[in-house]
């Protein structure tokens, strides 16, 4: 648009806008702000500023009123601004073990389920990229469909399979493989299974996107030079598909750390992930300032992975 504005200026008085004068000229000069500002302002107000409020309220104290926290900024009777910052919430986060333990537990759970997604998703994406063009677009749709289907309902559907009287146990009992039902629900294994099941499409899609663009002649060159297929994979394919590996891993890892529904529905009482702690702090204990402090601390820890994700997204868009 900058280029357009430049040529319009060079054409000078001859342009239709200049002839029509006032309004049209205004639109031509400032028109782009009519496009930029609505989404920019909306997202600043409803996505960015909320983090400011969370930061502010994390310094407040819980109070028995509506909303249930004390004022951080207040005007004293002699018309002066009064600032009362309380670090008590953050001190509480550091002293009560449950927060540190659940942070570490969430990171561990997210890490291993991301790894599982990668180990299952990579061969899937690789096989997809090697299919014929027509099959590829059908497979794309097959992988995208669960991604669009309700997350909650998919977790619920999985529960139907792994329950004590679910399909898996019924089938295994009928086949005589086991004598009594396997206990899968309310275990750590169920949480892993739930995360892998829910997030697998997020891993497969970016991997497929990079593998599909891979230059096949490079592999042929490697094989011409005497490299075995497995060696060529390690030396050529794997390094070149790293952007997809990282993008997919971030798309799984970051939301999985904050997962609430899966540990709440499939996990047992000891699967205390940070999302669950945050939810309980808010809905069960009604301690909004502590919940805000947990959210802020959580976000600080996520800043690194989110920055990596942003970096790769921007790079991907520029290419």
């Amino acid at each position, binding site marked *: *648009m*900058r280029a*357009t504005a430049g040529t319009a200026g060079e054409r000078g008085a001859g342009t*239709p*806008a200049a002839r029509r004068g006032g309004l049209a000229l205004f639109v*031509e000069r400032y*028109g*782009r702000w009519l*496009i930029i500002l609505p*989404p*920019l302002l*909306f997202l600043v107000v*409803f*996505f960015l500023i*909320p983090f400011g409020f969370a930061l502010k*309220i994390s310094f407040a104290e819980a109070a028995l009123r509506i*909303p249930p926290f004390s004022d951080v900024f207040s005007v004293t009777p002699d018309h002066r601004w009064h600032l009362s910052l309380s670090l008590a919430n953050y001190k509480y986060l550091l002293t009560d073990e449950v927060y540190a333990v659940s942070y570490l537990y969430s990171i561990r759970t997210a890490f291993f389920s991301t790894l599982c997604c990668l180990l299952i*998703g990579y*061969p*899937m994406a*690789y*096989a997809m990229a*090697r299919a014929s*063009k027509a099959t590829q677009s059908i*497979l794309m749709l097959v992988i995208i*469909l*669960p991604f*669009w*289907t*309700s997350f*909650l*309902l*998919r977790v*619920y*559907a*999985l529960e*139907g399979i792994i*329950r004590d*009287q679910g399909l898996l146990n019924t089938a295994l009992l009928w086949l005589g493989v086991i004598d009594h039902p396997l206990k899968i629900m309310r275990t750590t294994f169920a949480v892993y299974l739930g995360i892998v*099941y829910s997030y697998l499409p997020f891993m497969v899609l970016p991997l497929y996107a990079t*593998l599909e663009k891979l230059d096949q002649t490079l*592999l042929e060159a490697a094989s011409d030079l005497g490299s075995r297929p497995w060696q060529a994979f390690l030396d050529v394919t794997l390094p070149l598909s790293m952007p997809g590996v990282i993008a997919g891993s971030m*798309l799984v890892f*970051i*939301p999985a*750390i*904050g*997962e*609430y*529904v899966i540990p709440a529905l499939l996990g047992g009482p000891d699967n205390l992930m940070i*999302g669950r702690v*945050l939810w309980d702090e808010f809905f069960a204990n009604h301690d909004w300032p502590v*919940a*805000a402090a947990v959210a802020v601390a959580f*976000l600080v820890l*996520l800043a690194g992975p*989110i920055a990596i994700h*942003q970096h790769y997204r*921007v790079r991907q*868009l520029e290419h």
Partner: protein
Amino acid sequence: MERRSSPLLLTVLCLGIAFLYLPMVVLVAFSFNASALASVWGGFSTQWYVELVGNRQILGAAALSLEVAALASTGALVLGTLAAIALVRFTRFRGRLLLTGMVNAPLVMPEIITGITQLLLFVSMLQLLGWPSRGMTTIVLAHVAFCTAYVTVTVQSRLASADRSLEEAAMDLGATPFRAFVDVTLPIIAPALVSSWLLSFTLSLDDLVISSFVSGPRSSTLPMVIYSKVKLGVSPDINALASLIITIVGACVLIAGYLVRRAERQQLRDSQLAAG
């Protein structure tokens, strides 16, 4: 790359797809089970679907969810398309980096953080400005924020691949930039607009965590009602409801996929015609 895959790779692909689909297929099959016991097949029956029609709580929540989804996806379509145009067409402007960050961050931001921060914004706004009280308005606003990100990303990639020279040709022939965009580029990105509206609609319809935080005491969306029932265990009427939703969403995705594919083929044919 088009080469034969090893049997091992194909096996993993088939098993992976089976893993993704089996639970849903079983869920739909058992929603027609006459027996209330989820593990015993008691014959074919549509009684749970009939019971669904009489359930006031579920119908009310479904109506609210559909209304929220329609409003949020429409709002997100407008804002997301504008953001995509800004990011693709205006290479340098103040706030570009900020806008890029704000349309990409919601894609990975854990919902629980978005939900709690937006709730704190809404209660603070209510305290300072007297608006908005928690309920449908706040749910719609919160949904527009995260759906905008998905719309922007979808439209952005389509717009970036659209041929700019057609629009320039239209302008050389005397069209205003606005006119040229509407007549030339809009038809090209139309499939992306349709599919991103549908994506926003399903994302909004599906959202549990953010809605739970920002909704008021009397406004429960469908996922919130389903969640409170599911916490108590598997129930046959939820099976029926879930099957219904999965089928509708599946149909929407297939239609959107078909539209995008048809448009891509059309464009390919057009460019081949132009080249030949």
